[in-house]
Every structure is written in structure tokens, then in C-alpha cells.
């Protein structure tokens, strides 16, 4: 994983059970996953395989039934209501399938507001917002409200918002699902360039086979377990896209 490949997130033996009445459903069965700086990982699996549950646990939004999580070498107390938002704020940027931009804020304000929540204000916030919007190629449209932006542009704003504040981990949930294939490909290229340039660890949860073309590693999840795990550099293009 090289100099830029130090682990920033390590989840080990994660189990998650949901109980409703007398019924208990086990969604994750000892899933383990690690993310390294500057490296892009795809998490793939069929519907109901536990992708989103694992993503919410990695994103410090959900407490697992058992297992451990370390972020930047620090064990996360997954049962602490106080600690989880702090890790989200400090270490994780999210990109959502449905963008989840604030419709009443312009592109620029969406980024600034995320920075405010992370504790960055004033001139520093303005500089950082300009930097990330420039990085995603949206400087010209920063005063636009989300309703006036195309799907691809909205996703660029969402990426800028996730990048803002220099969180070492970016978690993206189906980032191309609501985009046409051309725009989806552009967004993936942008993801790849930014993750590398900014030395972030990027996890993309996806169904989209095209994602494999830009990632370093693929983790396949099935029935709550990571069933396969490979580096794309060890495969041919045909094997990757199979």
C-alpha cells in the first residue's frame, strides 16, 4: 500500500443482529475490512447482503452487535453516543446516492455549512470551500441552488462537501446510481483523481461494475460476510469486469 497506504480505518469481525419481537436477523457475520490512505476500495454485493449496514457501522452511525473499529489508529467506542458524532465530524466525509444537499443553500453554502459543523469558520471556511469546489470543477456554479444544478453537478457538490475539512476517509453510497452512464463515468474519474491527489481513503459501495475500473481493491460481501477480496492490479481488465 506504499507510503500513502497507511491504514486509516480497520473493522474487524463485525457482527450485526437486528431483533424485532421474537425474530432476530443476523445481517453481518464477522465482516472485516480495512481502508488505506490514497486507496480506493469498492464494496460490492447483492441487495440484502449487508453493504449498507456495514457502511453505516464504518461511518460511525450504527453500533454493531460485536466487533471492533479503529479510525486513524484510535479504537472507536461504538457504544458511546458522544464519541460517534465526533469521529464522523473529524474523520469521515460522506457522499450519498441521493446527494442529500440542503436545497435552501447554494453549492457554496452547502460546503460552508458542512465546514461550520466541523468547526471551521470565517476566512478559513471560505478558502476551503473555494478550494474543494474548484477541485470538483464547480467554481462557476457555486452560487447555484441544488434545484438549478444537474444530477452530475449535484454529486460534484456532494463530493466537494465530503472533501471539505480534509477528513481522511470518504464513504460513498452508490454515488453513480442516480446518474446516467456518461456522467457516472465522469464522477468516478473525479473520485479517482481526488482520492489520489488528496491522499484520502475512499470506499465506494456499489452495484455498478464500471466502478471496478477505477478502484484499487474490491471487497465482495455476501450474506453478511466478506466472501472475496482482491486487488484489481492482480487481474486483467476482462477479469475485473467479469
Amino acid at each position, binding site marked *: 500500500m506504499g507510503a500513502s497506504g497507511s491504514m486509516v480505518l480497520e473493522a474487524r469481525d463485525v457482527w450485526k443482529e437486528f431483533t424485532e419481537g421474537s425474530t432476530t436477523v443476523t445481517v453481518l457475520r464477522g465482516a472485516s475490512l480495512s481502508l488505506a490512505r490514497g486507496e480506493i476500495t469498492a464494496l460490492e454485493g447483492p441487495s440484502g447482503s449487508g453493504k*449498507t449496514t456495514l457502511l453505516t457501522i464504518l461511518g460511525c*452511525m450504527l453500533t454493531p452487535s460485536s466487533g471492533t473499529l479503529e479510525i486513524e489508529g484510535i479504537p472507536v467506542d461504538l457504544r458511546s453516543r458522544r464519541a460517534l458524532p465526533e469521529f*464522523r465530524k473529524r474523520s*469521515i466525509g*460522506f457522499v450519498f446516492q441521493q446527494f*442529500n444537499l440542503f436545497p*435552501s*443553500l447554494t453549492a457554496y453554502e452547502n460546503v460552508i*455549512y458542512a465546514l461550520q*459543523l466541523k468547526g471551521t469558520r470565517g476566512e478559513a471556511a471560505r478558502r476551503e470551500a473555494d478550494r474543494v469546489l474548484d477541485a470538483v470543477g464547480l467554481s462557476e456554479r457555486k452560487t447555484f441552488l441544488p434545484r438549478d444544478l444537474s444530477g452530475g453537478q449535484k454529486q460534484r457538490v456532494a463530493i466537494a462537501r465530503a472533501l471539505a475539512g480534509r477528513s481522511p476517509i470518504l464513504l460513498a453510497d452508490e454515488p453513480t446510481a442516480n446518474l446516467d452512464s456518461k456522467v457516472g463515468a465522469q464522477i468516478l474519474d473525479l473520485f479517482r483523481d481526488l482520492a489520489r491527489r488528496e491522499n484520502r481513503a475512499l470506499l465506494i459501495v456499489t452495484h455498478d461494475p464500471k466502478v471496478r475500473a477505477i478502484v484499487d481493491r474490491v471487497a465482495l460481501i455476501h450474506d453478511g460476510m466478506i466472501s472475496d477480496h482482491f486487488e484489481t492490479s492482480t487481474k486483467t481488465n476482462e477479469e475485473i469486469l467479469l
Partner: protein
Amino acid sequence: MVDLAWKILLHDKTRFAITVAGVGFAVTLVFVQVGLFEGLLSNASVTIEHTRADLWVTARNTPNIDFSNSFSEMLVQRVRSVPGVERADNLIVWFAIVALPTGVKENVVVYALEDFARWGLPWSVIEGDPRDLRRGKFVMLDESARKRFGDFAVGDFREFSGRRLEIIGRTREARSFTTNPVAFMDYRVAQSLVPNELHNRATYILVKLAPGADPSAVRAEIGRRLPFNDVRSRDEWATRSRSYWTDSTGLGLNMMMTVFLGCLVGVVVVAQTLYTSAMEHIKEFATIKAIGGRDADVYRILGKQAVIAAVLGFGLGMVASLALMPVMRSIDLVLIISPKLAFGVFVGTVILCTAAALVSFRKVAGLDPALVFRS
């Protein structure tokens, strides 16, 4: 600094306008109801407050200024002899019957003194001179009598309890809680209207204290010398006259009910619109938490929106109420919005709107940030 609370409100201007209008309506309702109540109540004590008397001697247990009872006019001599009393005079407040040119008979509240100027009555004179009242069978009528008595002018005659009196002046702002018009006349003329009740009798003694006199000592001494009368300070007497109407009638309760309903309307409007707004923005709030915000950040947004609605609604209600003042005056109603009332309503509005936001607080409390992953 991005203010998401404001931005969300302004993003849906129609809803925001409805919220502010709802609060404004409730504030106007409270201002008008309490203001009219205050205006009406002020009629119950307006003459007391304008009379330059430090103490009022009344017949025992007189409930308010209009419902007076008589006592010997000689008692005033005892009061005048009390050390610390600079001046004491008899006052008659009594109901008389006025025969109008139309044949209709109406009640009038008569205020009768020997020397009006000394006691500052009447305090607002449009036409005529109160000093002329002592010259004979004259009367000054308050303008508010026009509504019941029809037009009248200086030089006209009216029959008061069977005696023909000439109108020599017009006054303003002299009112009675009973809504009967107020007339000013000479003390002896008033006694002559109802001789069987008022011959050698008065209904109040007005007392002016000498400079430096101890009011409580003078009051105690008057009380000792007039054991069958009550002695009250001006403020006490004014309060008693007002309290009579609030306590002995359903007026106070009626006012409280309307204020309660006004508050309820405001709370329901704010709670309902904030709640609906919170529900519509629930995913945005989940996003706030997902990207590092806490419950407190979401509460701050909802709380701020409630306070904004309260402040703007209060402003709207205040402007509407002030605009209603001349309208009320034109129909002979007094709407009083004192700074104290305005401050109380403002604080109440902010508290109630914030309380209304608690319904939304409960809904977003512990909101699951993972909601962002659900479509």
C-alpha cells in the same frame, strides 16, 4: 456564516408567511382583548387618577367610585382638623336622570365639588370654564355623552332629575365604567337634584396632605376620627374600583379565556407549521447529523426558527394592534397597550413559540443519521 434556520424558512416563503401571520393574529387577539379590557378598566378609575387627592374618605365598604354611599357633609370638618391635612373638601358622585329633548331618559354620573380647579377636575376641557360652575344652575358634559344624549352645545339646557340646567362647557376623557356619561356641576346644585338623599350629605372627602406629612399617620388619624368611614390612598382606591369589576363580574374571566384562546391559536399554528416543516426537512436534519452535527445543532435550528416566528409575529401583531387604535377610538372604545403589556406579550410569545417547537424537538431527538441511506 451560513444560517440554515433562516435559509430553510425563507426557502418556503408561503409557509413562513403563514407561520408569522398565525403568530401575528394571536398577538393581535391578545393585544386587542387585553388592551380593550385595560381601556375599559381605566374608565373605572380614570377620575380617581386625575383627581389631585392624596387620600379618599369613603362611606364604609364602598365598592367602587360609581356605587357611592352618602354620609354627613359635616365630617369634612373633622378631617380638616387632622394635623398633616392641607386641604379637605366634600365630593359628590351620584347618579342622576337626564331628560332628553326626544323624551328619552338617560342616566348620568354627576361629579360635584365646590371648587373644581383645586382638585384638577375636569382635567380635559374642550369648551367652557369649570370655575363658572359655582355661579349657578350649570353643568359641563363630557363629549362621550353625545352617543346617548345626541348632539348638544354650550348654551343648551337639559333637565337633570327634574331641574333645568344650562350646559356651559364640554369635557373629554371623563368616563365611568358603567358607560353612563359624566357631568360636572356645583356641589350645592347636585344636592338639590336629590334632596332626600343628598341634603347636607356628601359621598367622598378628598384629602390633600400638607408637604412633609406622613401619609400613613394622617390616614390612621382620619380613620380614628371617622370610625364609620374608610380611608384609602389614591392608588388603593383606584385599584379597588377596578377590582370590583374584574372580581364581581365575569369580565376578568372572559378576558383570561380570550387571552388563553389567543395563546392557544398561536401555539397550535407555530407547533403545527414547525412540526410539518421539521417532518419535511427530516432528511436534511439526518444529513446534518451524518456529516458531523449533533442533536444540539438540529435543536438550535428549530429553536431559532421558533424565535424568528415569535419576533416577526409579535412585530406584525403589534403593528396591527396599533393600527386598530384609531379605529377603536372612532367607535368610542379605548385600546390601551402599555409598555408593560407589550413586554409581557413579547416574552410570552417567545416562550410559547419555543414551547411549540418542543413538539418538533421530540420528533428529531435521537434522529438516526443512517436515515440518509434510505430512499
